[in-house]
Each structure stands twice: as structure tokens, then as C-alpha cells.
């Protein structure tokens, strides 16, 4: 990873990586996008949307990802006849000050010509990106997301409380932290509401968890996998209780929805569940769908806790893996960044592991590759869905400071 920290973008935000994204705008353009990226090192990432029908959600997500502070340049790859509004996306990228090219396969004359043109553009953009001003990254520049995946009975005892302590410290130091997700916090609504900055925000949190419970009930299946049960978790609320520990103990400053950037530093809950009855299927089909949403909210890096053992990383932002289970860590240590399972075997206490993770978050922000980056992971998935930006009751800090979104 040729990670150069502290890329100052024209909007004032600072990136901790300098990635070129090659973006397919329909599945039919995906092979060409992959081929454009394939000869380059792992700072050229492929993201995109597979559907041919228009999607406001996919448009928002790709716009937020293409203008993410970790992204330095964008190559859009269109087949030519798909429903995605490529001009609008290109306008948004150009407006952000980033180099942007749009390649239309049908106009370019097919696969070979488009791949050659795309590689030329990537090379040219990387030369221009070398001129981006470099600045030191500080905690108040950072947006850190967290997710748990492959949870088990150890997650809520070791890795998740470790993340909670790191979140408390990052927020106290002026950073921004985002935890997820309403569907995996069913049963924790009263505890979260009590931590809300205002009573109105508390009411919103309760309503959003109720919405999630109704949504998953209508789908006939909660966010609970067979592996969760094999690892000792029995019920959705038990899993939620463990997941909730990632949020720490500080006040909750607001609720955001996918692609919505927290307007001020603080601790935010990401509500991933769409409004209304289920329309497009499960809110997020897997962990990477949720990681992509955290990144679209501006997360520079994502802290991923796992008990059963996940190996995923992500395009655009590094993923740091905290392993909750000492047996899993022994089997999969190459894929992990932090061994929180040693809290159970007497090797360390929660504070010691939290100090290690905190240092690693800062080191990752300064360019140190995570395990998943070093292994070349850069998963990405984006599906049909809807997302409605949260209103003023969800963002009390916005009102109190008068900041514009």
C-alpha cells in the first residue's frame, strides 16, 4: 500500500489514504473496470453499482464515496446504455476538485480500447495526485466507524468493550465516531435513549429501533446468523447487548443515515434501516454493505470486531480487525490486527487492549497498513435500497452550533 497520510482536499477534509477509484456504473462494465485496475498496486480500488435501473441511494453512495477524503481521483466506467446518471456523478467529482474521467465502453469501441484508455487515465491522475498538499493527521480530522461481524459469546465481553473505550477517548479528543446499527441494537433502545444529547434525540432513537424491529419482523428473520448461535449467542437481544458495548459510555450526539456525514465531531449512531415497509430486501445483505455505508458517512477507517473470524477489508478505507475470541485468534492471526481474546485468557485487561487499539488507529491514520490491506482485501458491495437523511431532531449539535449540513 503506497499510503501517504494527510492528503488535504479542497473541501478542507483530510484523507489518510490517496486512492484512485475505478467505478463501474452497471455490472456490464465491471470486467472492464477490474481490468483497468489490475496492473496497478493496491492503491487503485474498484467500486461500483451492478444494477441497470436508476437508484437514488446508489447515486448518493457513489457520490459520497468518490468524494471521500481518502479518494484522490476517479475513473468512471459506463457501458453506455445503463440507467445510472453518470454526468451528475462526474459533475460532483469535478466540483470537488478531483481529477475525473468518464469512459463509455460503447463509444470507445469495446473492451480493449476502454481498458487501455482507463489505464492511461489512472497513470496520468496518479502524477497529478502527487501535487496534493500533505498535512499531519490529527484526531479532530478523523471519522472512525465500527462494525461487528461474525459475533459470538466473547464479542460483547472483550473486543466490543475495547472499541467502546477507544471511542470514548477519540470523542473526548475531538474526533468523530460512528457505530451501527439499529437492527442490531434491538433491546438497547432505552439505554441509548438515556445517553442521547437531547430528549428529542432519545425519542428518535427509540422510534428508529422500533422501525428496525418491525422491518426485520416483516422480513421474517433478524440480523442473526447460524454462526452467532454456534458461538454461544442465543437471542437477537443478547447479540445486541454485546454489539452495543462498541458505542462506549459517552453521550450520543446524533443519528445519521447512509451517506449522511456527521455535521460536527462526536458520537453518532448509523441507522441503516430504510423508512417504510420493506421494499428492496434486507437493509444490508452482509458486513461489507454496512462498511460501505460507514465509509460513505465519511469514515476514514473502520474498526471491525469479530468472534467467529472475518477476513474482509474494504475499498476506499482501511479496516482494522479486533478479534474477540482467543481460539479464533490462534487460527486466524494473519487476518487480525488486535488480539482482544487475551482478556479472557489473562493476558491483558480491557484498558491495556484499548490502549493498543487506540495507538493502532492513529498509526493506521498515519499510513500503517492494516492486516486486511496488507493481504490485498478491498471488498465492496452496493445494492438497491433507499435512505432518507435524518432531520434536525437527530442532529442536535447541528442546531446548537448553527452549522450547515
Amino acid at each position, binding site marked *: 500500500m503506497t499510503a501517504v497520510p494527510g492528503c488535504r482536499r479542497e473541501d478542507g477534509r483530510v484523507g489518510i489514504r490517496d486512492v484512485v477509484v475505478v467505478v463501474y456504473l452497471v455490472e456490464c462494465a465491471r470486467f472492464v473496470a477490474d481490468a483497468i485496475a489490475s496492473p496497478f498496486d493496491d492503491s487503485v480500488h474498484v467500486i461500483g453499482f451492478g444494477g441497470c435501473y436508476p437508484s437514488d441511494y446508489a447515486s448518493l453512495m457513489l457520490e459520497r464515496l468518490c468524494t471521500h477524503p481518502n479518494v484522490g481521483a476517479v475513473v468512471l466506467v459506463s457501458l453506455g446504455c445503463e440507467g445510472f446518471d453518470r454526468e451528475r456523478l462526474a459533475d460532483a467529482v469535478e466540483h470537488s476538485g478531483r481529477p475525473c474521467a468518464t469512459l463509455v465502453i460503447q463509444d470507445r469501441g469495446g473492451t480493449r480500447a476502454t481498458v487501455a484508455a482507463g489505464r492511461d487515465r489512472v497513470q496520468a491522475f496518479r502524477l497529478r495526485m502527487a501535487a496534493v498538499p500533505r498535512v499531519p493527521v490529527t484526531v479532530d480530522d478523523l471519522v472512525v466507524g465500527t462494525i461487528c461481524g461474525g459475533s459470538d459469546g466473547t464479542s460483547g465481553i472483550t473486543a466490543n468493550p475495547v472499541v467502546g473505550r477507544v471511542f470514548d477517548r477519540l470523542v473526548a479528543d475531538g474526533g468523530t465516531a460512528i457505530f451501527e446499527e439499529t437492527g442490531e441494537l434491538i433491546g438497547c433502545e432505552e439505554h441509548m435513549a438515556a445517553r442521547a444529547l437531547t430528549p428529542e434525540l432519545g425519542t428518535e432513537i427509540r422510534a428508529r429501533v422500533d422501525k428496525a424491529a418491525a422491518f426485520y419482523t416483516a422480513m421474517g428473520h433478524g440480523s442473526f446468523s447460524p454462526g452467532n448461535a454456534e458461538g454461544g449467542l442465543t437471542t437477537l437481544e443478547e447479540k445486541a*447487548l454485546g454489539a452495543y458495548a462498541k458505542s462506549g459510555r459517552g453521550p450520543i450526539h446524533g443519528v445519521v443515515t447512509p451517506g449522511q456525514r456527521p455535521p460536527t465531531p462526536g458520537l453518532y449512531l448509523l441507522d441503516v434501516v430504510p423508512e417504510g415497509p420493506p421494499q428492496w430486501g434486507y437493509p444490508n445483505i452482509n458486513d461489507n454493505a454496512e462498511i460501505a455505508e460507514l465509509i460513505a458517512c465519511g469514515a476514514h477507517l473502520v474498526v471491525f470486531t469479530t468472534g467467529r473470524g472475518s477476513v474482509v477489508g474494504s475499498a476506499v478505507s482501511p479496516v482494522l480487525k479486533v478479534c474477540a475470541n482467543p481460539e479464533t485468534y490462534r487460527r486466524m492471526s494473519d487476518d487480525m490486527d488486535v488480539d482482544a481474546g487475551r482478556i479472557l485468557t489473562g493476558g491483558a485487561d480491557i484498558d491495556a487492549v484499548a490502549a493498543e487499539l487506540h495507538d493502532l488507529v492513529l498509526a493506521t491514520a498515519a499510513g500503517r497498513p492494516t492486516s486486511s490491506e496488507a493481504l490485498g482485501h478491498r471488498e465492496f458491495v452496493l445494492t438497491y435500497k433507499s435512505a432518507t437523511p435524518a432531520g434536525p431532531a437527530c442532529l442536535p449539535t447541528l442546531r446548537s452550533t448553527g452549522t450547515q449540513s
Partner: protein
Amino acid sequence: MTGTLLLLADGDNVYVATAAVVPGEVETTTGGTVRVVDPVGLGHKIAARDIPAGAAVVRCGMPIGRATTAITAGQWVHTHNLRSDYIATLDHRGGPG
């Protein structure tokens, strides 16, 4: 920490196993022992005391569902005798209902 059965909060009626346990007397983190009835893996729950059918199972101070049958101290607490108050857990691989 000493003891393999972890009590996460005072008042909890289940322990969490911090390593695999086999039937017999097993030390708890609160200084006592429990006669474990069922073998369980790391991360699974053992009843800390008798739990009547219909009573809340409490872990880390929060209810995590209700006992579907009477559970005696030392028994494994899982999908065969505990169910969610919210959305039922997926039953899978012919496991106990």
C-alpha cells in the same frame, strides 16, 4: 482472571464460559464453584441458578430473552431453552428448537 465461568454483572442468572468446560465442578470468577451438567464451548452460557420456565434470562444486567422450560443450575442455556422477546433466532442444522 481465575475461574472459567464468568459472571458479567451482579444479579445475572447465567455465567459465560471463558474456555470450553466439561461436566463436573467448575470454578467461577466470583470465587465459588458450580456443578456443570452439560459440556459447552467458549462463549456459551451456563445457568448460575435455577431459572423457572418463563423467567427472564439476565446477562450483563440486561434481559436477553425468556426461559422456555425450567432450567436448573449448571445446565447449558441456549436456543433449546431460551427464546427472544423480540425476533426468533433462526433454527439451523437440525439443532435443538
